[in-house]
């Protein structure tokens, strides 16, 4: 229980740090984003609603002499209510709606791709580590090439080869726009089909890291006494590999999930852009290109919260798969 409480406390601190960072970044930067946003709202023909200005000011800073602390409190209040103002690049949709429609796409894409990459990478890593000293070792440098390839570059090459030249997969978008999004087989099938290439990009680029990490841990675990015991016990190879070596080797990989997830999230932003995927990464870039500061800030916050939530989930999972965390420290 203590483990869980500590983890929970840590993520609360991290969340607070992210929220606070988000509060200060625009205030520390040069320029006056609120004025730019308001000018754009007027350009878009919106009456200058004082409440809109207020929402922006809380998000991005203001030149008024309201004490910083008061601004901060009101900012937190707006966050809790999910009030981030109006998106100027998707005018007149509220920022929260823009995020709500795009977030599921990214969560599904990055989620599925990460799970695949993790399963694939760990399985391969276990196997390569177990068979150390055989030709499988040459897989290790090969996958490092893949993980050193820029995501967008790989994505574009995949589009050019598998999409354009061979025509196996759709080039763009999240689903066939003829279909109506919803829980029907046609749409889900189309969404899956469209997700193959983006997911493949993420999997191919991130699988190497998992493979390498697991392989190294596997090698370390195989030198542990309990593996020797298991062999002495006359257990079958598969059982020793999975329940003794791998079961212990994956723990550090799981613990290192935070670092990996950061890379995947980063990569998926660029990948979404290449595939015109209707996710939150595309929206972030749209916001950046259109100086839609409110949307940008909110997306950063949402991504951070999502990453924190994923890490928390993994930490909780870690608590289940490593019994040592349950008692003691």
């Amino acid at each position: 229980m203590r483990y869980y409480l500590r983890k929970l406390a840590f993520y609360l601190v991290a969340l607070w740090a992210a929220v606070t960072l988000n509060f200060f970044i625009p205030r520390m930067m040069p320029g006056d984003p609120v004025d730019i946003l308001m000018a754009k709202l007027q350009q878009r023909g919106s009456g200058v609603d004082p409440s809109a200005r207020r929402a922006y000011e809380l998000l991005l800073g203001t030149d008024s002499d309201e004490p910083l602390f008061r601004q901060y409190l009101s900012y937190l209040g707006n966050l809790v209510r999910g009030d981030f103002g109006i998106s100027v690049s998707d005018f007149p949709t509220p920022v929260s709606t823009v995020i709500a429609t795009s977030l599921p796409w990214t969560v599904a894409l990055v989620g599925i791709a990460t799970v695949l990459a993790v399963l694939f990478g760990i399985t391969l890593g276990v196997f390569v580590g177990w068979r150390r000293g055989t030709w499988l070792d040459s897989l290790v440098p090969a996958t490092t090439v893949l993980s050193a390839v820029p995501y967008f570059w790989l994505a574009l090459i995949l589009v050019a080869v598998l999409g354009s030249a061979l025509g196996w997969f759709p080039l763009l978008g999240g689903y066939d726009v003829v279909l109506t999004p919803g829980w029907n087989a046609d749409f889900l099938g189309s969404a899956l089909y469209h997700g193959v290439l983006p997911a493949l990009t993420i999997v191919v680029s991130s699988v190497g890291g998992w493979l390498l990490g697991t392989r190294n841990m596997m090698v370390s675990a195989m030198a542990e006494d309990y593996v020797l015991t298991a062999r002495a016990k006359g257990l079958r190879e598969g059982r020793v590999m999975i329940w003794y070596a791998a079961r212990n080797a994956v723990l550090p990989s799981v613990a290192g999930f935070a670092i990996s997830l950061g890379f995947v999230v980063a990569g998926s932003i660029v990948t979404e852009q290449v595939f015109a995927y209707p996710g939150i990464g595309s929206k972030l870039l749209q916001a950046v290109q259109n100086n839609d500061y409110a949307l940008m800030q909110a997306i950063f916050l949402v991504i951070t919260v999502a990453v924190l939530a994923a890490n928390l989930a993994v930490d909780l999972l870690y608590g289940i798969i490593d019994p040592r965390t349950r008692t003691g420290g």
Partner: protein
Amino acid sequence: MTNLSPELLEPRPSAGWRNLAPRWSPKLAVGSALILTITLFGLVGPLLVGDPDRIDNIGLTAPSGGHLLGTTQTGQDVLAQIAYATRGSLYIGVLVGVMATFLSALFGIVGAYIGGVVDEAFSLFSNVMLVIPGLPLVIVISAFVPPEQRGSWTIALVLAITGWAASARVLRAQTLSLRGRDYVLAARVAGERTWRVIGVEILPNLLPLLASQFVFAVIAAILSEAGLSFLGLGASSSSTLGTMLYYAQNGFALQRGAWWWFVPPGLIIALFGCGLALVNFSIDEIINPKLRDLRRRVGAVTRRATDPAPSPGDDAVLTLTGLSVTYQGERPVRAVREVSLTLRRGEILGLAGESGCGKTTLAYAVNRLYRPPAEVTAGSVTFRDRVDGDLDILALTPEELRAFRWSKLSMVFQGAMNALNPVLTIRRQLEDVLTTHRPAMSRKARRARCAELLALVGVDPRRLRSYPHELSGGMRQRVMIAMALLLEPQVVIMDEPTTALDVVVQRGILREIMRLRGELGFAVLFITHDLPLLLEVADRIAIMLDGQIVEYGSAEQVRDQPRHAYTRRLLDSFPSLTGERGAFVRSGGAP
């Protein structure tokens, strides 16, 4: 016992500097070659190629003699552009690498060394920075900085600030472990200044790790910068591989089939990253020697030099004849040399010797647990089974060997802390022996058997549900013994079964072993460095020195008439024994 190979010994601090030199390997060679070539290309290339900006009337020409890598949409020479772009990317990469490594060293090493509140704060800060996703943060910050102010330094600084946390965590963990080492403690006690201790005692030992983290930061920075530039958020008016890709994409290079414009920049990044990663492997191998390459010959099981000798006498259960084990390598180490021993049914044969004399290696050779680079080079191991008669252990097929292990010969390892799998319950670790060797057994019967055995060794059967870390050291060793007896083996090899335990617990366990042997009638090969102990418990004793048996006889013989000088030395090095103590253990039963 973890140190199966002399190579794997942890580097001593005094040898730190020597160990910093990576071992030469194909990976290192290829990696360094890639890095050197690309770096050289970035440094010298721009001097050799023409003006990367010069345009031409005809654009997008395929590679030819005039333009080795073709031209861009505006007729600019791709090779020249790559040369300059490589330089630009390397510049940013190194800049970020230096800054990020500095930050991580500051927060990782200094924090961990000072300890206390500072460490807590630094560590919390690093962890928070670690879980906040970097690139979105970079994108947001870049978006707020106007293009005019977005120079290389700004981008590098932002990348460094968002990229140091992971390595700070690694450095902290390593520093914490170094901090507790004797020589560091000694330096601190001697009153050396903090910075001196860090600089002289800790830093050299962290160098491989720092180098590895630096390498990692450089790769990450080059990749991130490429991503940013590709999105149009990179340093303004800079020329990097990322901006090249941006322009290639802008000019529809892929759609026009101009692979020569789009592919090379990405490939350079990938190859450079690959080179750095390969070098990183070599650095990793310094940090973690276990990762070093094994020159293992696949399928090479063992070499048998002699035919199995017939067992001398009917009461022998395990016979070693002329057994030699060698660690193959540049300088082969003969760890066990022509050892011949006989274990009789039901007896305790003690094997004594100091650490590193080869006794553990010998024990592993008996049921072929040794791993490469160890190899049996001569001799035989014969097991006389009650039912099947003589078994030539070294000739068993892998499946026969697997079936043989534990059911006829089981082991109790030294340091039961590590011999039990920390993530499985005691029950599962006991039961998987039964599910493997007694597949016909019902689930209920298995449970009953496990509970019975635990009770036999004096552990509450409710402990079946526990994990190893929830048990005391003594209890764990008892569990190990219970496990070893699950299948009623004819021989149990006990390798320092009580070494890590305190004296009282030790006594209890030894008594237990003696009692169980009495009840179940298995033979024991008892390995220890503790000769006096052996004198109390063993029927016969063998003394091992440098891989050879130098003394072999009954316990009384060895005690009273040692033939080898080494035996005498061993005997003399211990306080004289009292008969009471021996009686105490041997009598068994009630305490």
